[in-house]
């Protein structure tokens, strides 16, 4: 189970896309895993032949738990892998002794009827609660006038994000049963609440633990935009590059020049990133935020970066992000230019040590030598962890972005 986010503890297996006997290659999508925030397509780390699937659909396991055994395709039964197999060497646990053995049917009926078995007097031999006992208990009117909701209905309602008090019951005395819980409630509502919770926890932790400092600078981008315009005239519409991709490229190259802002704060020390992996904040329809990661953003040209950005944006919105796109970020970029605000002063996503913000590009008066011209200007901001860097380093970084955007021919 990969770590698909800094705060992830467990993941739930939603779907297997491979079976024992299938050949897989590194990078193939082999399973779909649910985190608190969304479903992620998990890419395989190894190449080989799937020998055994260790986790069932619906099972929740901690990060780090093995999900499957992939071998080199050696002949039947030989489990070549040295990876620990979950549960293989634990002795079987003897079943706990049961005080009153109840038939599963009676137990099920009691659950459906919302009857508390402990409170029912059993008329069967040995005081065992029978089906008839349960049915009699089910028709009793509620003592305090409150409508009963069966435990199963309560669980379904919780899963579907519904308040049981709002449901009308079809059982005796208006009791709410499982059949009364509507199934077609969009799962999105529950999912969004969970994602909101995860974002809230991360942001709160950031503000609690990270001593932020903030810098901003206005960058005149007439040259960069006119270069981009010309570039876009020469490529198909589908390959058009957005200013956002240009800004990302500039950030990636600036991070090469000032690597102290590219990495993580771990155990009271700075760990430089293993490459420049930019997380780019994308707002989701219906609210919420995703930050898909563009790996090695400094090694690919602006066209390739645009392609990745477009794909990641699409996948973030349809909930089909890949595991490589939700982990490993060394630096985050928030571009709220589309929202029409001038400056973004953002909150760092721990354990990263910096966050770059871009506001809207506006045409403004700009001093060019001794004359005033009107030029497109964007405000770039930096929120940085003061444990890792000082203002001078942050300033160097923003100046680097400015300088790089004035040399657009070096961007592709």
């Amino acid at each position: 189970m990969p770590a698909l986010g800094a705060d992830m503890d467990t993941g739930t297996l939603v779907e297997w896309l491979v079976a024992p006997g299938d050949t897989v290659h590194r990078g193939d999508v082999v399973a779909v895993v649910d985190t608190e925030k969304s479903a992620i397509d998990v890419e395989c780390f190894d190449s080989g032949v799937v020998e055994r699937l260790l986790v069932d659909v619906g099972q929740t396991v901690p990060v780090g738990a093995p999900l499957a055994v992939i071998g080199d395709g050696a002949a039947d039964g030989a489990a070549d892998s040295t990876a620990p197999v979950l549960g293989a060497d634990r002795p079987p646990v003897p079943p706990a002794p049961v005080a009153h053995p109840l038939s599963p049917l009676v137990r099920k009926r009691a659950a459906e009827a919302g009857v508390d078995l402990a409170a029912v007097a059993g008329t069967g031999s040995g005081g065992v609660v029978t089906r008839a006992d349960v049915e009699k208990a089910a028709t009793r009117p509620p003592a305090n006038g409150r409508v009963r909701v069966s435990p199963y209905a309560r669980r379904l309602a919780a899963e579907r994000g519904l308040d049981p008090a709002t449901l009308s019951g079809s059982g005796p005395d208006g009791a709410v049963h499982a059949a009364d819980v509507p199934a077609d409630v969009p799962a999105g509502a529950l999912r969004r609440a969970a994602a909101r919770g995860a974002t809230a926890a991360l942001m709160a932790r950031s503000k609690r633990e990270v001593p932020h400092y903030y810098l901003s600078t206005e960058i005149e981008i007439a040259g960069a935009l006119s270069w981009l315009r010309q570039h876009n005239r020469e490529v198909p519409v589908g390959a058009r590059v957005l200013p956002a991709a240009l800004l990302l490229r500039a950030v990636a190259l600036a991070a090469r020049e000032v690597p102290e802002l590219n990495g993580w704060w771990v155990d009271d020390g700075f760990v430089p990133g293993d490459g420049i992996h930019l997380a780019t904040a994308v707002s989701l329809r219906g609210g919420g935020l995703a930050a898909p990661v563009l790996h090695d953003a400094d090694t690919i040209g602006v066209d390739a970066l645009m392609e990745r950005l477009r794909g990641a944006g699409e996948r973030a919105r349809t909930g089909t992000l890949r595991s490589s796109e939700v982990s490993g970020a060394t630096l985050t970029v928030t571009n709220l230019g589309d929202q029409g605000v001038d400056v973004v002063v953002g909150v760092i996503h721990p354990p990263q040590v910096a966050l770059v913000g871009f506001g809207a590009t506006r045409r403004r008066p700009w001093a060019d030598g001794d004359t005033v011209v009107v030029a497109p200007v964007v405000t770039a901001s930096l929120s940085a962890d003061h444990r890792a860097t000082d203002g001078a380093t942050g300033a160097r970084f923003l100046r680097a972005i400015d300088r790089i955007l004035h040399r657009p021919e070096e961007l592709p």
Partner: protein
Amino acid sequence: MTSADVTADSARALVLEVLRTVAPGPALDRLGPHDDLRDVLGLDSLDFLAVVTRVSERTGRRIEEDDYDRLADLDGWVAFLAT
């Protein structure tokens, strides 16, 4: 589909269909002819580019960035495509 074949109605239908692939929902159902698409449908620059790309592909007509100013609302799109 050449420009000559594009009527106002078919242009409107096409643009709405494309918008549905990018920003489906109640805001689209209530969209008026002069509503700013980016504001009312919450389209960001990636979304807008997706709309431009898809309409371009379906009409076979290249839409330049210089044309964007004319494409802020539905009426603008219809006028642009039907010329």
